[in-house]
């Protein structure tokens, strides 16, 4: 487990704050933007970043992240390049970074080599939505050896026994999708799902955060009331693609402030 990530989460939650994290596809909108975006998110006080490894066939993603993935691949974004960016970022910053993506690029890179190189670059955790618990379990020794958190996802249709199993084995936190569907859908926080998340508190004793389709301060507020924080992805990508490189730091600060009303 990554000490950096775990301590950051504990400190934040112990102080009565909620976690606010952002997903951005690496190499999008251009390769030169990735490092400035990470630095700007850090400066804006984001708790951690999910850095997306682009994949040709992102089945769990809606049109926004699909397009970002396609663009990033066209830009020549590869896993070794992404690890380099993290290593560069790590020289001056301690903001935790989680790599998020689909299994195949990681498999082709080699799971053991991936974990080792993640540790060397300063990656704190991984989220691989198409690597289910049954498959990931055998890989846990690699994650442990590299101090990497492996974060599981659950959804509002996940049965209680399964939730308990995944909560027991996830490290750092549990990632909850706000609905059954793909990323970036335009759905309000429905009462049924907020009730589901509120009930989770009784079931699991790990922190859990909510992602998928979060784009407004009102949603952040409602989900924060029933969880330990949120992840914003598609909305950030739609926003950042309109920003010129030079204005990234200011723009990112405005975006984060708009959703969290935090002062940093």
């Amino acid at each position, binding site marked *: 487990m990554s000490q950096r990530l775990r301590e950051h989460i504990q400190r934040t939650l112990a102080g009565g704050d909620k976690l606010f994290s952002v997903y951005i596809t690496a190499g999008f909108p251009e390769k030169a933007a990735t490092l400035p975006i990470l630095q700007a998110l850090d400066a804006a006080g984001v708790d951690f970043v999910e850095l997306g490894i682009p994949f040709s066939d992102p089945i*769990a993603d809606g049109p926004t992240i699909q397009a970002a993935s396609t663009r990033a691949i066209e830009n020549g974004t590869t896993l070794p390049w992404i690890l380099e960016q993290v290593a560069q970022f790590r020289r001056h910053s301690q903001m935790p970074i989680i790599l998020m993506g689909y299994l195949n690029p990681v498999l*082709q890179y080699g799971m053991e080599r991936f974990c080792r190189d993640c540790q060397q670059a300063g990656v704190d955790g991984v989220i691989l939505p*198409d690597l289910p618990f049954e498959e990931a379990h055998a890989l846990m020794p690699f994650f442990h050896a590299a101090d990497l958190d492996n974060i599981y996802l659950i959804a509002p*249709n996940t049965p209680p026994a399964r939730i308990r199993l995944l909560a027991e084995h996830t490290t750092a936190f549990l990632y909850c999708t706000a609905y059954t569907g793909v990323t970036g859908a335009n759905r309000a926080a429905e009462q049924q799902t907020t009730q589901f998340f509120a009930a989770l508190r009784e079931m699991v004793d790990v922190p859990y955060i909510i992602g998928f389709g979060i784009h407004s301060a009102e949603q952040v507020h409602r989900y924060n009331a029933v969880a330990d924080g949120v992840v914003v992805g598609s909305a950030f990508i739609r926003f950042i693609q309109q920003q010129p490189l030079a204005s990234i730091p200011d723009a990112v600060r405005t975006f984060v402030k708009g959703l969290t009303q935090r002062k940093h």
Partner: protein
Amino acid sequence: MSTPNRDAKSTISNFTHYPDDAGYFDEFGGQFVPEILRPALEELQAAFSKLKQDDAFNRTLREELTHYVGRPTPLYFAANLTRHFGRARIYLKREDLAHTGAHKINNTIGQILLARAMGKRRIIAETGAGQHGVATATVAAKYGLECTIYMGEEDMERQYPNVQRMRMLGATVVGVTSGTRTLKDATNEALRDWLTNVDTTHYIIGSVVGPHPFPALVRHFQKIIGEEAREQIQHQAGKLPDYLVACVGGGSNAIGLFYPFLNDDVQMIGVEAGGIGTGPLQHAATLTYGRPGVFHGMRTYLLQTADGQVQLPYSISAGLDYPGVGPEHSLLKKSGRVQYLAVSDAEALDAAFLLTRLEGIIPALESAHALAYLPKLLPHTTEAEIVIVNLSGRGDKDMQTYIQHMEKEQQNK
């Protein structure tokens, strides 16, 4: 020609007991899907395990196959084609004569009965050539279920008559504009729909691909091809065949034919789409040129870049244009039980015209790939031997491609 696989040494003695409980065909298969789909896959597995042993379900299925689909399909001795090559006797398993013109309906009729038993109101499917889309729209019309078909926009252009058939059958055809705008992206879009509407919807996947239990489930409904052929050839020729030949895209017609013969002394050849060359983006020959990866919920052979991005397949045939392949084929390749090789677009076209002119049967371009292996195989056979080719579909949908080919030949004369 490389030696076929009769003497291939394999440590596997029984090929028919796969997959295991976790959905693995040795190292291939599995269930690499987001958590959201897990309850649906478990529900499907439970329903399938129960219903495949249910007398009433099997009786209904059998009746539908007989009176609606038109089974058994003939095993036709192609006397003229046999004479043309002058060696082994060639038989064609006539799946092109099944209702809707291809083997795809064997699977869709089985799966719609499953969907109905699970109380699903809505059906989705992906389609490449449109044959699976038509077969799905057909059974959805018959059983009165709402139906949405995902089809790549490029395929909609190539196979327009099938788009019109699906619409006439009452299905909504959604053109897919992402990625390569072909079968792989249509499958992505169908999976995204399923992630979103998982409670109400059953996804009738069209081939022996995808996460467990789909490869086993689709095989269960397609193996009737081989079961019939096995009985028919023994009745007609008094012995088992020496060779089975079938085309492989996702691989459902090939598994359907091969599976009941896997433990017999029969050589099997899976023919992939060799397109216009052996380089990247020139073919759809996954088993011939690919390497293992994880895609569409399964570990299997895959056309991919060094970085693990899925590569665009190419074939003249929209039904073979898939960068993955059923995980059972990956096992059969790795173990040496089945030999896989590729034939080119041009060879497939020649084979389609040869069959048409000699036997009066216009085959689908997909099936023409299987036929295109005959000129390579037959010189190595004897008159005492028997070859069965799976004629998986008819060629009406490919008339545009065939007409273009004829016009080109006319100009060259």
